[in-house]
């Protein structure tokens, strides 16, 4: 770790101001950034910790029946407090990492980092959620732009995420045995006007929607409909010591089927 300064603002306004200085970087739960710093792979001059900003924490039902989760809300809080409103999403949060991770990591941090194997991008994209920042609102379909890349501008902070609540949903996750991130995981959300299927852990381009499955499931929401599909092409899937592209493509189909089977 190199030496750095740290600021701990208590309002979004102060945080945005602090992030304007040269070499400043926002710090959420820190589960990606802190190990990176410890390995001396990053050298920000200033960290702006978002954990002291109460206005971006909490889970509430919005006036438009969307579930609103503050960007600084920990996974543990989402797991506990979203369960009555959006059980599929609460369950996703409850399966991230271990208790230490869930009590520290935040939804905003996860989405802003957009790790290609993170869980929240799948739940967010499948829900058709809206990402609210200090500056604007961004639709999930526009937000994720490839691994570790998002629509966020420099210094922009995720203040809230608004989730439409589906009729049924489920997150089916196959674990990478070492990191316990998804090797491949699929979030299926069934809305009155159609089904959305988002896949994480599989593609070199990060989280994506599986269009063929969405079409098939929108007309017939059953595992049989998934079984009738071919797995997506292996081309462009991640290949590493834990799984080949072919295996990941196969898992996309298997996990989609399991998500449909268990959707509630």
């Amino acid at each position: 770790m190199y030496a750095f300064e740290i600021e701990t603002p208590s309002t979004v306004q102060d945080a945005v101001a602090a992030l304007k200085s040269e070499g400043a970087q926002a710090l959420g739960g820190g589960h990606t950034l802190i190990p990176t710093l410890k390995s001396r792979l990053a050298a920000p001059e200033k960290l702006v910790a978002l954990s002291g900003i109460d206005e971006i924490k909490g889970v509430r039902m919005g006036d438009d029946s969307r579930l609103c989760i503050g960007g600084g809300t920990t996974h543990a809080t989402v797991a506990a407090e979203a369960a009555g409103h959006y059980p599929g999403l609460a369950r996703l949060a409850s399966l991230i990492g271990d208790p230490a991770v869930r009590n520290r990591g935040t939804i905003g941090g996860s989405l802003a980092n957009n790790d290609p194997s993170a869980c929240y991008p799948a739940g967010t994209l499948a829900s058709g959620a809206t990402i609210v920042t200090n500056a604007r609102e961004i639709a999930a379909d526009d937000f994720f732009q490839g691994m570790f890349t998002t629509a966020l501008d420099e210094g922009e902070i995720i203040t809230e995420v608004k989730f439409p609540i589906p009729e049924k949903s489920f997150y089916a996750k196959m674990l990478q045995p070492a990191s316990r991130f998804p090797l491949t995981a699929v979030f299926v959300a069934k809305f009155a006007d159609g089904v959305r299927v988002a896949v994480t852990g599989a593609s070199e381009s990060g989280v994506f929607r599986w269009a063929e499955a969405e079409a098939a499931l929108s007309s017939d929401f059953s595992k049989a409909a998934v079984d009738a599909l071919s797995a997506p092409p292996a081309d462009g899937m991640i290949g590493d010591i834990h799984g080949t592209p072919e295996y990941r493509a196969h898992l996309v189909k298997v996990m989609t089927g399991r998500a449909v089977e268990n959707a509630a």
Partner: protein
Amino acid sequence: MPDGGIGAPTKRREDLRFLTGKGRYTDDINLRGQSYCVFVRSQVAHGRIVSIDTSKAAAMPGVIQVFTGDDFAEVGSIPCGWQIHDRKGEPMLEPAHPVLARGKVRYVGDAYAAVVAETEAQARDAAEAVEAEIEELPAVIDMVKAVSDKSNLVHDEIGSNLCYDWGFVEENREATAKAIDEAYHVTTLELVNNRLIPNAMEPRVAVGDYDETNDHSTLHTTSQNPHVIRLLMGAFVLGIPEHKLRVVAPDVGGGFGSKIFHYAEEAFVTFAAKQIKRPVKWTSTRSEAFMTDAHGRDHVTKIELALDNEGHFLALRTNTYANMGAYLSTFSTSVPTYLHGTLMAGNYKTPHIYVNVKAVFTNTVPVDAYRGAGRPEATFQLERVIDKAAREMGIDPIEIRRRNFIQPDEFPYQTPVAVSYDTGNYQATMDKLIEIADLDGFEERRAASAARGKLRGLGVNCYIEACGIAPSNLVGQLGARAGLYESATVRVNATGGLVVMTGSHSHGQGHETAFPQVIASMIGIDPSMVEIVHGDTANTPMGMGTYGSRSLAVGGSAMVKATEKIIAKAKKIAAHILEASDQDIELKDGMFTVKGTDKSKAWGDITLAAYVPHNYPLESLEPGLEETAFYDPSNFTYPAGAYACEVEVDPETGQVEIASFAAADDFGNIINPLIVSGQVHGGIGQGIGQALLEQAVYDDNGQLLSGSYMDYAMPRASDVPSYVVDHSCQTPCTHNPLGVKGCGEAGAIGSPPAVVNAVIDALHRGGHTHVSHINMPLSPSRVWAAMQKS
């Protein structure tokens, strides 16, 4: 008889300090005026060092001195502890192993410079300022290809990447080939024994200290054998005589073999402390541990088993490539040879056995002993090929093993691979296994799994290991450059308490609990009267340390011998005081009694007399009560057992879950059954880790792809079942005084084939009959891929 002696399941007394954060580990040692060292490590696997410029680093704040290989020109090479002779009787090729790389770097992590500074952060900053020009060379990674590669050599000066080509027993070669050629059936299996990273909870640490006033060096280090480090580093590397060098290995947080070896960092801090006349501390980061701790296993093997038409084994031949890594670590050369070839008979009567091992240099971190060390590699290939043979011949896998077992009345049994088993009963452990694993209920459990869409499989295997190493005269003939005895000094204090200074070293084995149980039983006192001292060359007799499941069998035997001397002397004192012949003195329950009388004296009376010798036979007996013994075993010990694993395979994902695991072990006599069970649990956990999860992977350029816990999968609690273990089958060792065999490695040796056998069984039951083997780790991806082929 007081409670808590031999056989009592006493909870470990040392756990109180370990579990409450009161342990004192090497990193807890901070000396006045201490400086900090950070190594500059190669980022390429193979390269020629063109130049190293340390001037910028030396000018950085807080930097005391920057070292390169040139500073070690007059210093010796890190030695290898075992010289192997090849098939033609020629000694192995033994390249130099410098403390800091000179001329070339040979693996990612090979240190070529080191910075010593006032703080660790300053040292780290300065290490980044060391400028080296390193001309990258093609990396030698694939060991099979490396053997014939003459143009790309890890060590140019020795002219080959082949360290040795070993035949064992060379005289068996032709007879084995003939038996295989003429056999009714031959089963062949090619497999990889996957490379593992030890991952002790405590990373390595070394603190060097130098006392100018009396020219004395001290090294505090994370070691399993401080005397061995003192000898290797003092005599071979730095040229410090033993009386001027103290090595201390305090509480050590796990070793699993990886802390046996003398590492360059230890020599560096000892040397540098003398140069700068200040203590020098190095603490490995976890990333450094992945890169620089000696790895384990890494064999590529072809094994052939010849059978007659009834499944009797006729001959066995195995050809193995064993990875040495870039340099020869302390015991690296003995692991694939004498710790591996000698075990190829297993529990079976195979008349002809021939083992060939080619040890190969590659541009990877050195490979050396890791829990089991050679014996897991032997057991895995043997028990896998037997399983395959049983399937090919349509014989039940338990039945084919029973047909070939060495029978209880055939001991001592001389194998064709040099060792002679003293005792055992393999039918008994198999019978016990069938009972504790409830194998009769397997079909019912399989049907229940099938109803949940899972393929259930059953894997059974046996194992034998040679431990309690080792007879010094035998290993000397085989090339060991050390003796393998053990020592103990038993000091009785005036008021009757005892201190045992043992050459064994505890880093998780529970010696502080188990050793006192032995003495408590011998004297008839409470174990709390006995304390164990270990890990410091200044206050323990010359000892060879702890590895190879040897502490109780060898170190415990030395302690017994020393205690026997104590008792013999105490009886003489008692005889004097009780006015009787020492032949007539009996010691029981801590009381000395004159046989056939009610005249007696308590243990404490006699110990007091030894140190306050007012009424004492001074003319014939020295005062005091302190004895030392060295014990050199006359044979290895041979723990053996039978293991069963049941798995559930998800046919859609290839995910393997361990449904159950049962182990029936014969460890001979048991001192503390609770500790024994714990050792077996831990060993099986590591074996399951090897079978399903763990894998050190270098890419073609020699970069370590599994260099952190993000990619190196350690087993977690959720990966292992509740084990069923039994050690009631006991054939006591016939040649050590305790009749014990050792239990530290059994679990890691016996469990990998059980897991793999179970997965292959599950796939066959699920219709995937084309799958005869999958290389470890049996990751979901690999199992799924195997199911896809037809």
